[in-house]
């Protein structure tokens, strides 16, 4: 195709009105950096843009100008603030979660340390009771009934065994030192594990000559000053 032939086609090319073969031919020629064609194409673009004059004039609504301008002004700060606030909110949320996690973790650790400390102290006391030369042991129990051993010394009592029944969550076992005369003295509260095994250590000076028995009763979870129920177990030390 010659330049004079193409001269009449540039507008049609820009409008997309040419048959595909002609359009491809012109496009290939333009891409070969033909200066003449590029200049004619630029002129053709002015003609096609001016064809806008065929449209009946319509006055845009007055609000459209403000809408267009708002769309280019508002987004930048709005988007920045949006992301800034979002990032801040996310950071605060993370901080709260971390703080909550830290507090819960610290509380859990404190509780675990407290429980371990109690167990350690009980073990120390138990070892001290069991290792004294004056310690004596009383065995108790019967088939299908709680059974175990009571270790007694002047420094305390170790009461250990198995087959104690499961209790409701608001109940506990309470060990009593029963004297020949007078009211039973509390020797602490304890619970059995899921298998019914138990250990209770009493670490305080005792007058063994006055204690004739140990007994276990079921009491409210915080313990009682005196037995409130009939003992489920009585071990005579005589």
């Amino acid at each position, binding site marked *: 195709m010659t330049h004079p032939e193409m*001269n*009449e086609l540039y*507008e*049609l090319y*820009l*409008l*997309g*009105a*040419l*048959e595909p073969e002609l359009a491809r031919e012109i496009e290939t020629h*333009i891409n070969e950096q033909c200066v003449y064609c*590029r*200049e*004619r*194409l*630029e*002129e053709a*673009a*002015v*003609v*096609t*843009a*001016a*064809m*806008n*004059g*065929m*449209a*009946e*004039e*319509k*006055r*845009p*609504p007055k609000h*459209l*100008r403000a*809408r*267009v*301008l708002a*769309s*280019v*002004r508002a987004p930048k700060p709005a988007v920045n603030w949006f992301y800034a606030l979002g990032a801040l909110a996310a950071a605060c949320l993370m901080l709260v979660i971390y703080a909550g996690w830290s507090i819960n973790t610290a509380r859990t650790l404190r509780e675990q340390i407290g429980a371990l400390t109690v167990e350690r102290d009980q073990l120390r006391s138990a070892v001290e009771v069991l290792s004294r030369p004056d310690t004596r042991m009383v065995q108790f129990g019967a088939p299908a009934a709680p059974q175990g051993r009571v270790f007694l010394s002047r420094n305390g009592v170790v009461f250990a065994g198995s087959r104690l029944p499961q209790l409701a969550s608001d109940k506990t076992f309470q060990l009593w030192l029963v004297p020949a005369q007078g009211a039973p003295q509390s020797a602490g509260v304890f619970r059995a594990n899921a298998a019914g095994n138990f250990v209770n250590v009493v670490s305080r000076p005792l007058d063994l000559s006055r204690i004739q028995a140990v007994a276990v009763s079921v009491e409210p979870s915080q313990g009682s000053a005196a037995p409130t129920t009939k003992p489920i177990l009585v071990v005579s030390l005589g």
Partner: protein
Amino acid sequence: MAADDNEADLVEKVRNGDPQALAAAYDRYGKAAYSLFVRITRDHGASEDLVQELFLRLWNRAHQFDPGRGALGVWLLSVARNMAIDYVRSARTKFQAGLRPLDQTKTTAISYKPREPENVIDNAKAVREALAQLNPNQRKALELAYFEGFSQAEIAAQLSEPLGTVKSWMRSALERLRKAIHGGVKP
């Protein structure tokens, strides 16, 4: 922004993020673009959306435009026509999902030189005068090509006329427009 800023200055200011320059561009070409969108889409609401999208494109992509080459109106109205025809051809949802990227339109492959008449609105007036001299068939063929995006073959089918006849009408009509704007085809 002075009303008589030339196209190159206008584009340079838009490139620098001057909202007043965009306002000036809107004042200069907003009505022509809106008229074009309404004519092609026949939907005033959609035309408002398209006008907004058009000037957003100018705002966001002004850096791709060479301000030394002017003719902002030619660029805007060429892009506007492509957008409107795309809109009509596409489902609204497809339109909203993403308009055809600017760099896929023919308009970006073209540069415009300052020696061309700068204000395409003035050209439009000259085109109106030339259009008034066209016979109805010539005008109809041009309208179908420009507003509907039809090829010459499609126009021939639409008007139930031989392709050669349609080509002849369009050749004559375009020659009148060239003369009105440039004084005719360059040798």
